[in-house]
C-alpha cells in the first residue's frame, strides 16, 4: 500500500451530467433520436408499458384501501411509474433492490406478492416479504439509510464473485442526508457495484427541490465522488430503463457505482394524509399531467403499431385482476401474531422477554 504523492489528482473526471434530462421518448410519444443512451427494443418497451399500466392500477387500489382505513397510510407512486417500473425491469435476477416506502410499484413489478408489499402500510408487521426470495431489501423509511446497506451488500457480493449489483431507490429530499453522502462515497472508493437512482419528484413532502439543493442537477453530485452522473427524464420509462440497465451492467462488470437522477413528479399528495393545497400550485399538476409516463409510452407504441386497443385492454384487465385479488385478500382477517413481538428480537427469546410474553398472554388471555 504505497499511496501516491499525487494520489487523487490522477483520477479522471467523468463528463458532467446534462442540465436537461435525457429522454428517448418525448412527451408527445415521439422518439427523440438522441444517442447518449441505447434505446430498449420494442418488446422491452411493451413490457414497460404493461408494467406501468398494472402498477398504476395497483397504486390506485392501494390508495383506495388507505382512504377506507384498511392501510395505515399509503405513499402513492402515481406519476413515478416510469422510474419504478423502468428501474425494476432493468434489474437482473441476481441484482438486489433497495426500495423506500414509496416504491411499492417497483416491488410489485419485481414480482413481490402485492399483499406482502402492503404489510408495512397495512400495519401488520414492518415488512411482509422475504427479502431473499426476490432480492429486495425491506422498504426503508428513515431517509437514505438503506443506501449504505446496498453498498455493503454489493461489495460483499462482488467479493464473493457474484455478478450482481444493487440498485438503491431514493428521493430528492433524501439526497440531503448525511447517509446519502457516505453511501455515495463508500461506493465510489470501494468501486462497489451499486446504482443510485434518485427519483427527483420535485418535492420532499412540502419542500421543493430548490430548497434541497443549489446544484445544477442532483446528478451533478456524482462529480464529487468520482463516479458517473446521469440526468434522465424520469417520465420516460425507456430512458430510465436504459440508464439504469446500462449502469447496472457496468457495475456488474466492475466499473463501479453510478448516480442517476430521474426527473419526475409526484402527481398525488405525499401520502393520503397530506394536503398539497397548502404548498403547491395546481398548475404544476397540469404541467406534469401533460408529461404522463404511461400516456407517452402508449402513444409511441401505438404509433409504432406495437400495441393496440386489444393489448391495452389486456394490460388493463391484468391490472383489474391484480386489484381485485388485493382487495379480496386485504378483506380477509388480519393474521396477527403478538407472540412474534418477542420471537424476532434476538435469535432466541431471552429470559426477560419470555417473562414479558407470559405476562402478556396472561393479560390478554391468549396465545
Amino acid at each position, binding site marked *: 500500500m504505497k499511496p501516491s504523492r499525487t494520489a487523487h489528482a490522477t483520477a479522471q473526471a467523468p463528463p458532467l451530467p446534462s442540465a436537461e434530462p435525457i429522454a428517448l421518448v418525448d412527451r408527445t410519444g415521439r422518439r427523440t433520436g438522441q444517442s447518449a443512451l441505447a434505446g430498449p427494443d420494442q418488446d422491452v418497451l411493451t413490457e414497460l408499458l404493461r408494467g406501468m399500466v398494472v402498477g398504476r392500477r395497483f397504486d390506485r387500489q392501494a390508495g383506495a384501501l388507505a382512504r377506507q382505513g384498511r392501510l395505515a*397510510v399509503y405513499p402513492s407512486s402515481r406519476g413515478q411509474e416510469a422510474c419504478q417500473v423502468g428501474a425494476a425491469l432493468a434489474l437482473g435476477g441476481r441484482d438486489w433492490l433497495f426500495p423506500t416506502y414509496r416504491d411499492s410499484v417497483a416491488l410489485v413489478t419485481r414480482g413481490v406478492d402485492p399483499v406482502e408489499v402492503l404489510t408495512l402500510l397495512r400495519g401488520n408487521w414492518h415488512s411482509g416479504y422475504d427479502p431473499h426470495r426476490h432480492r429486495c431489501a425491506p422498504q426503508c423509511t*428513515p431517509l437514505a439509510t438503506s443506501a449504505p446497506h446496498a453498498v455493503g451488500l454489493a461489495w460483499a457480493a462482488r467479493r464473493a464473485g457474484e455478478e450482481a449489483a444493487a440498485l438503491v431507490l431514493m428521493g430528492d*429530499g433524501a439526497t440531503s442526508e448525511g*447517509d446519502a453522502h457516505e453511501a455515495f462515497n463508500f461506493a465510489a472508493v470501494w468501486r462497489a457495484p451499486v446504482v443510485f437512482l434518485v427519483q427527483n419528484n420535485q418535492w*420532499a413532502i412540502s419542500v421543493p427541490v430548490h430548497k434541497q*439543493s443549489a446544484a445544477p442537477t442532483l446528478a451533478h453530485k456524482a462529480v464529487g465522488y468520482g463516479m458517473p452522473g446521469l440526468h434522465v427524464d424520469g417520465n420516460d420509462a425507456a430512458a430510465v430503463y436504459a440508464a439504469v440497465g446500462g449502469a447496472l451492467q457496468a457495475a456488474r462488470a466492475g466499473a463501479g457505482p453510478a448516480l442517476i437522477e430521474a426527473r419526475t413528479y409526484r402527481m398525488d399528495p405525499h401520502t393520503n394524509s397530506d394536503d398539497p393545497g*397548502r404548498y403547491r400550485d395546481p398548475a404544476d399538476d397540469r404541467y406534469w399531467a401533460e408529461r404522463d409516463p404511461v400516456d407517452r409510452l402508449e402513444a409511441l407504441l401505438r404509433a409504432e403499431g406495437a400495441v393496440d386497443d386489444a393489448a391495452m385492454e389486456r394490460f388493463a384487465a391484468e391490472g383489474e385482476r391484480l386489484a381485485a385479488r388485493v382487495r379480496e385478500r386485504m378483506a380477509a382477517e388480519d393474521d396477527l401474531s403478538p407472540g412474534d*413481538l418477542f420471537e424476532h428480537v434476538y435469535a432466541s427469546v431471552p429470559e*426477560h422477554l419470555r417473562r414479558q410474553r407470559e405476562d402478556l398472554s396472561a393479560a390478554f388471555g391468549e396465545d
Partner: protein
Amino acid sequence: MAESTTLGKALNRALHDALAEDPSVVVYGEDVGPLGGVFRVTDGLTAEFGEDRCFDSPLAESGIVGTAVGMAMYGLRPVVEMQFDAFGLPAFEQVVSHVAKMRNRTRGRLELPMVIRVPYGGGIGGVEHHSDSSEAYYTHTPGLRVVTPATPSDGYSLLREAIGSPDPVVFLEPKRRYWAAEETALPVRTEPMDRAVVRRAGRDATLIAYGPMTATALEAADAAAGEGLSVEVVDLRTLSPFDDATVAASVRRTGRAVVVHEASAFGGYGAEVAARLTEQCFHHLEAPVLRVCGLDVPYPPPKLEEYHLPGVDRILDAFDRLQWEREWTSTGPAEVRG
C-alpha cells in the same frame, strides 16, 4: 377568556407568541414552513412572520441541529423540529457532543438557547419509526433539559419557557395528545419548567407519569378509585433535571409508587425514577417501585401496538402487585396507610 384548546394549537400559539415577542426566535426544520408541519404545530407561522422567521430547511437532521447550534452561538433562539422521534437520531451526535456540551466546553462563554422539538410516542397507528420514545437517550445526557407537556396549558407555558431558557431544551411533544383539548385561556403560565406537579391527590400510592401517559395515569387513578384505592398522580413535566423534592414527598406520603412510560422498560427513564426514589424513600416504601412500560422489543407495527403500550389495565395490575398487607375489596383496603 377560557376556551377549548388542543395541545397542538397551544404549542402553535406558543411559537406564535415567541416569534412575535422576540425577534431572535427562528423556527425551522422539515415541512414546518408553508405546510405548517406534518402535525400542523407550525401552522400559519410562515404566512404571518415570513420565510425569514419560519422556514423549511434541507432534509437533514444533523444539519438542522448543527446549524441551530451555530445560530444559537450567534445569539439567536432557534426552535427546530425533528419530524418524528426516530428521525431525530441522525442528529444524535450533534445533540450529545455539542448541544449538551457547548456551555460546559467554553466554561459558560458560549451558551446555546435552542429548542429541539420532537413529537414522540405512539398510539397513533403509525408505521415503523413513527412511534418511538427516546427520552432515555436524552435524559442520560448531562447539559440538556428535557421537557414534556401533558396538557395544552402546559404545552403553551413550557414551550414558552423552553424558548426563553438559556439552556438547550429537548422538548418532547406527546403526539397522540396533540388533539387532546382543555379549557384554558392563552397565554397562560403554569408551574415553572423544572417542577413536577401533583395532578391528582391520593393517599395509597403514587403514580408517576409524563407526556402521553399522564392522561392514561389519571384514567387509571379514576378506575382505581372505583375500587377504593386512592392514587396520587404526579406529572413530571420536566424529565431532566428531575424534581426530587415533589416526587419524593409524594412517595414518602403514600409509601408505594408506580412509574409508567411508553418506552421500553430496560434502561428506560423509569429505571432512573425507580432507582432514585428507592434511594431517597427506602424506609417509606412498602413495596418496590414498579414500572409499567413498553415491552423490551422494537416498537411494534400499528396493529400490535396495543400489546406494547401501557394502558389502564396494566397499571391496575401493577397496583395489585404493590404488596398490600390485606387483600383489596371492592370497597377498598381494610386498613388504610397514613
